[in-house]
């Protein structure tokens, strides 16, 4: 090989080295483009959610605020009618409770959207948790003459986030009490199904029309149902519940028939994937 040929060969090697470097840079650029596309899409989605969110919040807060303002005026003008004032205060109290509930749900929703919603797995007793939750809900049920029937099997402690699961149970029973007329029934059962735990909450309430059932687990997915007790719904609770259950690798399903009632079935795995490493330790 003469000098010219050797130079050519050396240049070829150098060109190939440069090509390799250019390819690497190109890979990085395309990776960044991929990340950018993902971020753009996420931002567009977040913006859309935020706009809808603000619209709903404004709408939902305006109603109770109007009620509070209206009844405050009534109290001022009817200061010598104690019975009427008591009624007004009760209505104001309901509006304030609704606003508090709305704010709690909104906080959960924003933390879900921002990804800061955390689940912490510890070994907990699900039967005890349900019993305690029911104890807290009994006064509301008694007040409405709704009968709660329990069928709670004793289950060995397993891994779940007690705070979040209590939130789910409270939400579901609270919904059952909202939409079940006076003298109705709410049935709750928990049973061990080998690798999963099955929780069923069934009510004899007004049910959800079939064409509206798809809205139940979506944010602000309210149905046209009106609570027989005049309760309002913020339309976030079940969406948050679904997220919590799925973060436990579980499922939550709803079956309902208008005028007959609604059944919510939750399947919770005893060893969620994210808790497996804890169990190994």
């Amino acid at each position, binding site marked *: 090989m003469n000098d010219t040929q050797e130079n050519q*060969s050396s240049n070829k090697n150098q060109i190939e080295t440069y090509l390799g470097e250019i*390819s690497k840079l190109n890979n990085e650029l395309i*990776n960044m*483009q*991929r990340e950018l*596309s993902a971020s*753009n*899409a996420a931002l567009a*989605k977040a913006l859309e959610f935020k706009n809808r969110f603000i619209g709903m919040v404004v709408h939902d807060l305006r109603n109770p605020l109007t009620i509070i303002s209206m009844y405050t005026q009534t109290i001022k003008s009817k200061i010598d009618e104690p019975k009427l004032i008591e009624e007004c205060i009760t209505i104001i109290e309901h509006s304030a409770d609704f606003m508090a509930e709305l704010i709690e749900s909104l906080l959960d929703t924003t933390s879900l959207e921002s990804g800061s919603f955390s689940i912490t797995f510890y070994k907990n007793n699900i039967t005890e948790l349900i019993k305690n939750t029911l104890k807290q809900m009994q006064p509301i049920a008694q007040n409405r003459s709704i009968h709660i029937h329990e069928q709670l099997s004793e289950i060995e402690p397993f891994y779940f986030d007690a705070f979040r699961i209590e939130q789910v149970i409270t939400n579901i029973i609270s919904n059952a009490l909202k939409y079940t007329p006076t003298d109705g029934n709410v049935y709750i059962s928990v049973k061990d199904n080998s690798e999963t735990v099955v929780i069923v909450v069934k009510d004899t309430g007004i049910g959800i029309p079939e064409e509206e059932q798809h809205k139940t687990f979506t944010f602000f997915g309210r149905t046209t149902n009106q609570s027989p007790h005049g309760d309002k719904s913020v339309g976030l609770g079940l969406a948050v519940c679904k997220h919590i259950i799925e973060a436990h690798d579980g499922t939550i399903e709803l079956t309902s028939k208008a005028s007959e009632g609604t059944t919510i079935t939750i399947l919770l795995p005893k060893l969620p994937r994210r808790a497996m490493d804890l169990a190994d330790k």
Partner: protein
Amino acid sequence: MDDIYYIIKSRVYELAQYAVEEQYKIQPAWTSYGSAGYIRALEDSRYHMLMLASSYALNDINMLGNYYSWLDILFKRLKLPANTAFDSLNTAAEIIDTKLRLNDSMKNFVIRITQNSHHVSSESVLQLSREAQEYYNFITKGNQRQAVNYILDIYKQGMQIIDIYNTIFIPIQSLIGKLWHEGKISVGEEHYCTAVTQVALANLYQFFFTGEKKQHKLIAAAVSGELHELPIRFLADVFEMHNWNTHYYGASTPLPALLQAVSEHKPNLLCLSVTMPFLVPELTEYIATIKKSHASLPIMVGGRPFSINQELYKAVGADAAAETALLALKKAEMLL
């Protein structure tokens, strides 16, 4: 993984130099290629050493045989003397035996490749779809803009992105690789065609990233040293189109970066890719390390070595292997 692999890997520069010098002694004609030829021979020899080390450690003669067939076609195309592929592998084996005192075990291992036939398709006879042929015409004529516009046009006309991947990008990339191997296109042309495909992909990303929070999370990466990034990118993109949130780390991802990514994103599945068979031991180390701290994380592997040996994924400690992205999707459903 057998220690022999790590011993050879740690001494690969020194062993490759001995092998090249030995080869130059036996065939003085090599000196005519000058210093550039010597540098190339050193690089080739390092690949041979690592291939020998990984095939031997895995006791996978098919892996080595496949590499030998591929090398033989390449060297014949470069008009190197007949038997150069076998001779250079054999010399590398002899040097390993001598320097590591292996009593001819590496040499005997190499001889086994002559006892079996290892077929590597040498003809670029891939059947291309009409769209793929059109795209191919644009890229091979250097019409990058037209190639990308063509892809965007057929997407707007209703072709699904998954079909664009399966009927255009994947067969074209496969064809480009074959054409380079056969010497029908230069390495520069190969890089150019790949870059155009990457640009076309980048233009499609806006259509399938939805911003939705999806049910499952995937991390996809190629191991350190692996520069072939398109196969694992295709996989990540196909998962993204099928209800997965994907984090794509690309070519040559260092193990610490991957470990950090797994801790941060808590994926439901990790997919790792290897095209160059001599990186299989590297992959084995990745899997063992990741499984130590994330025992329950399913790991799927893919790439050429796993197509040659369908059972290899078990030896490397993975939970599954898949030849195509769609197959990987199906297997992922079974793993979760």
